[in-house]
């Protein structure tokens, strides 16, 4: 009888952010569905109530079913039987429950049988499910592929595929990486050729490290332009499992997220349909897909951290040493409070980014039906620019924090945490992938540093510092102001060297400095809205400040000359 939505008041808090009203009004387009669909809301309050009620169901399934199955799923994992994936029993039950509750396709429009939810509640569902079982969160989160089909496929394909998500509970996969194309997707080799006789595209080749590789539908990145070598020769295809021309060669044996099958796939004359336009596969569609997948990993990371923190908190209350519960000792309570602060920080950033994505994507869809007004266009561009740099920032911070929180949670357990007797070791193993897949932390820095270079982060800081805060919080705002000055100095120092390699060398430090200030502002805004967050804001900003001082000092001391000492 656990409910992972109702037992976590922070979720409701983020769901009720002031910007949600705008998001819902855009998404529901003046609530025009109300007259046609039984499940459409009549106004903002009604929509918000719908989100809460549906998340309540997801919270219940997560608490009662998915979390209960997590240990077994981790122990059994998925396996290959007759060239296909067989999920662990618990995974099958999880999918069945979610399917029967008509929860798949949460964010698809109602005409494709979805619930037309914005990204924010959808991301929240991923957080909730990840807290229950981070591995299963992948299978849930791959609904992102439906979003990609919705965004880029023609109407015929949309109508053919999208309703199956909600109606049949189909799962999806994004088949991108290959044995020799990991981070560098431009070198993808899987071949697509158009078979004139059969009138269809055919796929031939191998994919590797494919999450949920044996899904009902897959988005496959393939080389459609013979003789090309880079990203411009790649297109995106839809492969349907029903064709039965793709076999699973193996399922990887991983450190964590064992319930999520990571597959090696062989395509042999596999018929597939082209999504959107040729040659746009990597440069447009996969980039969009990756962005939502990164947000998904952000949500997964928050869920993992939430689970880890709760395990540690319970253990620290229960475990007695030296005549008292260990939570009474400064060394332990400091760890717990740091964890709690990090969870608050990553969640705040996650939902801020989700709101940006919501706004610009909704405008994009609206623009399919009518020409946007000038202000609307400007707003769309503004939020898209923000989302472009906030997405890697979210992925970077939340995945690193998830690892730190899981690490500390295990530490709080002492020797017991190292044993299989407690869930924390599983959570610790599951956390480790988050800062690796969908682009390593190092690659998130490459994307996020653009926000440092083009001044987007600085503008955001300036905008945020205009926010009026309660008098008792003004000292924190001032502190953030000083951190901003220091950040600007650091950026100038690195930029003035006019050396790309030096810029890359300090990039992570600069991004982290920016992130600390931005998250500080977000927590300050949370705390301005609800004093519940006063402590998190103050603790985070103080920690961030000391980390930024450290980075600043390091940047000042390690110049171009010192760079040589690092080179291998």
């Amino acid at each position, binding site marked *: 009888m656990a409910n992972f939505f109702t037992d976590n008041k922070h979720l409701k808090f983020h769901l009720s952010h002031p910007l949600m009203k705008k998001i819902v009004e855009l998404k529901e387009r003046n609530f025009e569905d109300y007259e046609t669909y039984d*499940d459409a809301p009549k106004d903002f309050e009604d929509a918000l109530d*719908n989100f809460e*009620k*549906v998340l309540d169901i997801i919270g219940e399934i997560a608490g009662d079913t998915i979390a209960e199955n997590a240990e077994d799923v981790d122990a059994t994992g998925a396996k290959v039987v007759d060239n296909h994936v067989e999920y662990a029993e618990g995974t099958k039950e999880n999918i069945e429950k979610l399917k*029967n*509750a*008509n929860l798949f396709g949460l964010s698809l429009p109602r005409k494709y049988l979805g619930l037309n939810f914005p990204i924010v509640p959808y991301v929240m569902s991923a957080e909730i499910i990840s807290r229950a079982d981070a591995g299963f969160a992948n299978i849930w989160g791959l609904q992102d592929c439906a979003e990609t089909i919705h965004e880029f496929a023609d109407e015929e394909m949309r109508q053919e595929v999208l309703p199956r998500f909600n109606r049949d509970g189909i799962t999806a996969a994004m088949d991108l990486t290959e044995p020799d194309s990991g981070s560098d997707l431009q070198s993808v080799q899987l071949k697509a050729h158009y078979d004139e006789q059969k009138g269809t595209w055919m796929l031939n080749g191998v994919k590797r490290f494919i999450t949920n590789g044996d899904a009902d539908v897959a988005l496959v990145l393939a080389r459609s332009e013979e003789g090309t070598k880079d990203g411009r020769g790649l297109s995106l295809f839809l492969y349907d499992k029903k064709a039965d021309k793709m076999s699973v060669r193996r399922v990887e044996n991983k450190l964590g997220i064992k319930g999520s099958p990571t597959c090696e796939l062989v395509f042999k004359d596999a018929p597939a349909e082209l999504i959107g336009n040729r040659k746009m596969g990597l440069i447009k569609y996969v980039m969009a897909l990756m962005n939502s997948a990164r947000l998904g990993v952000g949500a997964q990371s928050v869920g993992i951290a939430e689970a880890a923190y709760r395990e540690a908190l319970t253990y620290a209350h229960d475990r007695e040493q030296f005549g008292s519960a260990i939570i009474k000792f400064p060394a332990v309570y400091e760890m717990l409070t740091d964890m709690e602060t990090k969870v608050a920080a990553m969640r705040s950033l996650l939902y801020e980014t989700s709101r940006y994505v919501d706004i610009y994507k909704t405008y994009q869809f609206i623009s399919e039906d009518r020409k946007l007004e000038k202000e609307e266009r400007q707003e769309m561009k503004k939020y898209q620019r923000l989302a472009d740099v906030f997405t890697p920032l979210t992925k970077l911070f939340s995945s690193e924090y998830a690892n730190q929180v899981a690490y500390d949670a295990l530490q709080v357990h002492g020797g017991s945490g190292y044993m299989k007797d407690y869930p924390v070791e599983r959570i610790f193993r599951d956390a480790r992938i988050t800062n690796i897949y969908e682009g390593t932390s190092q690659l998130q820095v490459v994307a996020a540093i653009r926000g440092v270079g083009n001044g987007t982060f600085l503008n955001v800081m300036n905008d945020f510092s205009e926010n009026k805060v309660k008098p008792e919080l003004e000292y924190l705002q001032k502190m953030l102001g000083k951190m901003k000055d220091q950040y600007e100095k650091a950026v100038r120092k690195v930029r003035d060297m006019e050396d790309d390699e030096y810029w890359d060398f300090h990039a992570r430090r600069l991004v982290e400095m920016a992130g600390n200030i931005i998250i500080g502002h977000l927590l300050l805004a949370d705390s301005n809205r609800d004093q519940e967050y006063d402590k998190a804001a103050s603790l985070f900003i103080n920690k961030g400040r000391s980390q930024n001082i450290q980075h600043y000092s390091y940047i000042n001391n390690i110049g171009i000359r010192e760079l040589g000492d690092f080179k291998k």
Partner: protein
Amino acid sequence: MSFRILVLVKQVPDTRNVGEDAMKADGTVNRGALPAIFNPEDMNALEMALKVKDYHPDTEVIVMTMGPTRAADIIRESMYRGADDGYLLTDRKFAGSDTLATSYTLAAGARKLQPFDVLIAGRQAIDGDTAQVGPQVAEKLKLPQITYAENIEKISKTKITVKRRLDRGVEEVAVKMPVVLTAHSSADPCRPRNAKRLLKFKNARTIGELQNETEDYTNMGNAKSVHKISEWTVDDLDINPENLGLQGSPTKVKKIENVVFKQKDSVKLSESDEDIEKLMKDLITSHVIG
């Protein structure tokens, strides 16, 4: 093949989370102090009905409850999970009913909803724990009954085969329909709420609820697709008022006692082999084990 199944449900105080003010001085349950929930075994009953509907989609599942206006909550809960419709029997004259008066009222409601093929109730409710209402309804409707039902094994046009969960095993019973079943907690747990049904039926209301919510009666129920949950009072049922509520309830609570289990005897044992051996022998001779 399709069936018409009536499920009796009850909203009960959550006696699993009992505080100090759970009982009133007169020995009755203080309903106001406890959160109201869907009686757990009634949810098993609902699931049993919905499973039949899974296999025979044209089947109609109707829930019926007796209680105050707020008991409409569990009708909505049932509809979120798949029930087609619900009836609320509500009237001040029903207040204070014991099992006899309750079963009298429910049987009257069920009679009005005839014909049905199967009536399923939870075995017992967690507030009274009598397990009497289901069987009494069956008696009053002159229908065969299968209590402690765990699963409907087979259902055909006229005959149903049900597995019963008994203390020392299971039993399969086949009987002609219509029939009354009472569902045991070992039956499948109820499925989660369905998102689309929830969004559709969250505004389903009884007339009493609409009156409470709306000040302007003229606009009442005009909102789009507000599903109306039927509400039946004494006047809607063919019943004798003398058999209702407190008046129709012969049960009198004589005394209520708070029983706190205290340990009477205790034996201290050491970790020595002799002590453990002695304990084992004692347990075996007293037939606690072995």
